[in-house]
């Protein structure tokens, strides 16, 4: 049976773009999270909203930092 070449799940050329976009989006969500933490008063802060923002922000920051590593040549 013929051997098939294996390539990366995401084209390597996309890594820098993906890194910039995902980190930017992640930082935006992080900012909104901290703005919410700082402005809402302790009594009417909603845990669900906090966790939702934190989850989205961490997913974007997580993948973003992975692509930053890959784009800079640190192949994890």
């Amino acid at each position, binding site marked *: *049976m*013929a*051997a*098939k*070449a*294996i*390539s*990366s*799940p*995401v084209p*390597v050329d996309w890594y820098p773009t993906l890194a910039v976009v995902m980190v930017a989006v*992640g930082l935006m969500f*992080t900012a909104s*999270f*901290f703005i919410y*933490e700082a402005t*809402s*008063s*302790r*009594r*009417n*802060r909603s*845990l669900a909203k*906090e*966790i939702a923002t*934190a*989850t989205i*922000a*961490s*997913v974007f*920051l*997580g*993948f973003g*930092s*992975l692509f930053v*590593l*890959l784009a800079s*040549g*640190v*192949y*994890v």
Partner: protein
Amino acid sequence: MATPPPLRRVAALLLLLVAAASTPTARADLVVTRADRKVDLTSHIVRVLTSLKVENSGPEAVSQFLLAFPNVQAKNLAAIRAFGTEEKVKGPSMVLPIEVVQPSGVPPELTFFSASLSKPLEKGKTLHLDVLTVFTHSVQPFPEEITQAESQLVVYQDSAQYLSPYPVKVQTLSIRLPGGRVESYTKYPNTKLAESELKYGPYEDLPPFSYSPMVVHYENNNPFAVAKEVIREIEISHWGNVQITEHYNIAHGGAKLKGEFSRIDYQSRPYIRGVSSFRHLIARLPPRAHSIYYRDEIGNISTSHLWSDSKKTQLEVEPRFPLFGGWQTTFTIGYGLPLQDFVFNSDGKRFLNITFGSPVEEILIEKLIVKVVLPEGSKDIDISVPFPTKQEQEVKYSHLDISGRPVVVLEKLDVIPEHNLYFQVYYRFNNISLLREPMMLITGFFLLFMACIVYMRTDMSISKNSPSYLAKVQWDEVQSIIQQIQAIFNQCLAAHDKLETSLHELSRSGDVKSCKVARKTADAQFKELAKELKPLLTSLQSSSQSYQIWPKVEELVAKERELQDKLMTRHSTVVDSFEKKLRGQDVENRIAAQQQKVAALRQEVESLLEYISEI
């Protein structure tokens, strides 16, 4: 000139061989009708290509052919390969498997290799056999120490006659020298030195185990690059890269430098004062190699050059200093290769297919350690190497690893460029494991956010009943009430806007009914909001911290109520006018005054809201 010391050893061997030749052997069935040997002495790795024409003169078919080497040569043998072609010279050649054998009745000073023929050689048939043998450490510098200005002279010894357990009818030997001076060579009948080629023969009808030592003493200034140890690490990342890092410890294996080294002499006339040294090495990297670096312990070495085309990438590295005999240096080369060129999938198993040896040209590696670092989560590791190696496994911890990456370690002594063959490492790997690293990063960030949430929610004060703490708690309460009030007023304003748009709709379409419906819903909403607002206002009023803000809130409530009233009256007026079918001009006149008031009130309410939110 003195006789090189190894000659004496050879003479002793010769005596033994003469004794051996007289012992009858049962291998006389085969006759080598022609043996041509070509010895390449241009570098420090000696390559001997022996072309043999073998005939079976006995009655029985023969299925193996014996190759004999004196032990002194056999211990330096780095590679041996045999290719067989039957009958025609230009037929398809087969690689013959070779193994070490110890036939009975042969002198112990010889090592025998047996090449198994693909099919037995019948009586009277002829076989063409090409045997490539590669020897290391066979070219000895003589003298062993030279000064900077001297050329390097080396000695090579072999037999002028082909050493074989079979009788040889016709044979020749031709030795290719690197050019330059030839100090001396053993002279036999039929010996000829022309240009840089030394020829012995043809000799005819020699019995088995014929051996006549020959020595050639000649000039060889080609780089004697000998690596004491090379560690080659191949790290696979399924994110699209095969990273190769090679650590070299290279020495000049030729004649040692005697006396001192003069940099001025070297710099002014490098090809005279330093002819035996070498200053650069060439590495042929695979095509599409990227991120290439060349460094050592103290940092980047800037003296390197790189050329690349679609077939190869050529890297020329220049160590920090020229290497003279006995000098050594260490450095590291690293480069990345695209994953799809080297890793493949077959039957659900993945495998790495890459060359074994170092990409540096004409280098002898005394100890090569190849480490294949597989991605974390690889299982069922299987190795297939075309020659024997020492194998073991270890675990490496690298970026973002939890359980570590499995590492296959292959170790081989005396590796020459002929060992640059492809080898395979098979393993199983699930693509889901690729998500381990991002998941780890995500978890890390998420924990950071969680820590923030927890910090914002914990009460860190020590004394729970100090006046300042109580004031803070009350103030928090006031703040939360105010935020709720704000939300209610914002809803109110939104409802106002809705009413306004319904009026616009009315003036456009004249649909009185929908306008009335909008009015009704707004009324209901206002009632609801007023109900919600009431308890908040009372609690705010009762709070001791609200003395500052309370008047403003009161004012806000009053203004809003007034605004609401005005809006309602205006709304009724307009709807009324539409029902009475008054002209547009009249309607405008009737509400003009109200319009102004509404706008002014709205502005006041908004500024109050803003003021409150800023507290």
